[in-house]
């Protein structure tokens, strides 16, 4: 159920998500990392409708610290699976504020991602949910959950960032 939100809030949230996608698609990974709060989590569940990241496995479940390791890894000259880094196009739509409570917003969106690397193009589809927090620096990501439609499939290694 959508929360009653103002046009200004919806516009602000959309701009934030588009900006996040723009940073990823232009390889500005350190700036992207900077959008995440210190206590943030970045989660790609393994199972459809997975409720818990701590007692069931995830394709990715990173706290801020592990996300920093992941982003830093891209800078190493022998990051084999990330050299060259995948080129991506993030297409975001169906942006939808689900809930606004205190200084946080829960936002749903859909993502279609084209990824190209090593003569191969992959297409990803995902339902995404952000928990965004208002801070003095502007909106920050407190949690991001990416439910890939094919999370339970046999998948080749995943190195792109969603």
């Amino acid at each position, binding site marked *: 159920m959508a929360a009653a939100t103002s046009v200004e809030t919806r516009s602000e949230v959309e701009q934030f998500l588009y900006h996040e996608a723009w940073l990823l698609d232009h390889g500005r990974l350190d700036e992207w990392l900077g959008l995440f709060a210190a206590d943030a989590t970045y989660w790609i569940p393994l199972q459809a409708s997975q409720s818990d990241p701590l007692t*069931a*496995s995830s394709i990715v479940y990173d706290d801020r610290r592990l996300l920093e*390791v992941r982003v830093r890894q891209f800078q190493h000259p022998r990051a084999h699976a990330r050299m060259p880094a995948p080129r991506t196009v993030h297409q975001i739509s169906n942006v939808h504020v689900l809930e606004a409570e205190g200084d946080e917003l829960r936002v749903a969106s859909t993502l279609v991602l084209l990824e190209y690397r090593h003569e191969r193009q992959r297409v990803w589809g995902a339902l995404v949910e952000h928990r965004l927090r208002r801070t003095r620096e502007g909106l920050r990501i407190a949690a991001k959950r990416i439910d890939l439609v094919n999370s339970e499939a046999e998948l080749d*290694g995943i190195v792109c960032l969603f």
Partner: protein
Amino acid sequence: MKRESIKGLVQPDRVHRSVYTDPALFELEMDRIFGRAWLIVGHESQVPNPGDFFTTRMGREPVIVTRHTDGSVRVLVNRCAHRGARVCEAAAGTTREFVCAYHGWTYGTDGRLCGLPLPQGYERPPAESTGGGLASVPRVDIYRGFVFASLAAQGPTLADFLGPLRASFDDFVERAPEGAVEVAGGVFKHAYQGNWKLVLENHNDTVHPAFVHASSIWAAREQPAGEGAYSDIGVRQMLQNGAPWDVWENTGLWVAGYGHSWMGDYHDDRRLVAALEHPAFAEYRVALERRLGREGAARVLGERRFNSIVYPNCSFMSQFRQLRIVHPIAVDRTAVYAYSFRLKGAPEGMLRDTIAFSNVVNGTGSPILTDDLEVYERTQSGLGARRSDWVYLGRGHGQDVPDRGGALRGGTGTSEIHIRNQLAAWLEYMTAEA
């Protein structure tokens, strides 16, 4: 392909590239290796009660593993005896019978044909004409809860086949305070564009981490310590991959019959190894001592094994509650299913450790695993080059040391003894008379 020409493909310290690239050899492997060997299909905890089932593959053969009403575990070929459709689509579940979607032929959890439409339309009872129901896999046996099956009616017993690798399964189970483990937390299914042998050869390869995992080792070294954080175990595992050469050289590496092998442990991190002192393990240790006593628990926790490999389709980490099943798809395509296990009777925190470790070691998006998969693909691609025919496996050749229980130990922990041993088993399977 003649057996004589296959014999020339594996030599004492090298192997011909076609063993990884020739589709005709792959077809033979499916018959002569995956059609004969004991293959792990799963764990009893996946079918705890009568009627429970799950679907998987033995090599490329689609199978259903069931718990029949008499309590026995059965392995059935997932193919209707009538027109050949798969009769079971679900990954797992509970049922009284399997009903084919096409014409309603119905089978019990033992595979017996127990119903079909319009039986009066046949000259002879269809059960007689079709072998009685779903084809069942001729041999099924269980070791410490791990379910194995063989598509061949004859061959070594499971106990003989496993040999000294039984101790690795014992280690897996004895670590549980209740003396039993169960599958928990979901299954990773990662795939790569390469031959199935590459993953098994890699899991006891102790020279590769410094190179393949250089980037995650480096990124982890730059990271401040985070004791108590979820990510702590994952970051520590990345750091362990960067152990100095003398650690790898001194790691034990043993091989046994049928292509199996196992590695001693290279971990010395108190947060990763339950035998070492860390408050997180205290409660678990107490629970284990309740069953085994103080000395018994110390003995079990003091057993330190890293990857154990049961050729040709299983690789597991008893110490870290991880098990991987290898599914060959084509000569250059492989899927690996990775399972986590709960130690029954252990505090919930142990499962959380297992999951945090699993995400970073076996996760499809893991900073570690993705570099392994990349290198398998580069290897497969490179092996397509026709100007060089041989893969060189000479590291440690001539230095093997006989050890207890008929095992051989690599002269050092960085020996390629396990790859030579796998290929010796490969040659035996591939050239044996049927």
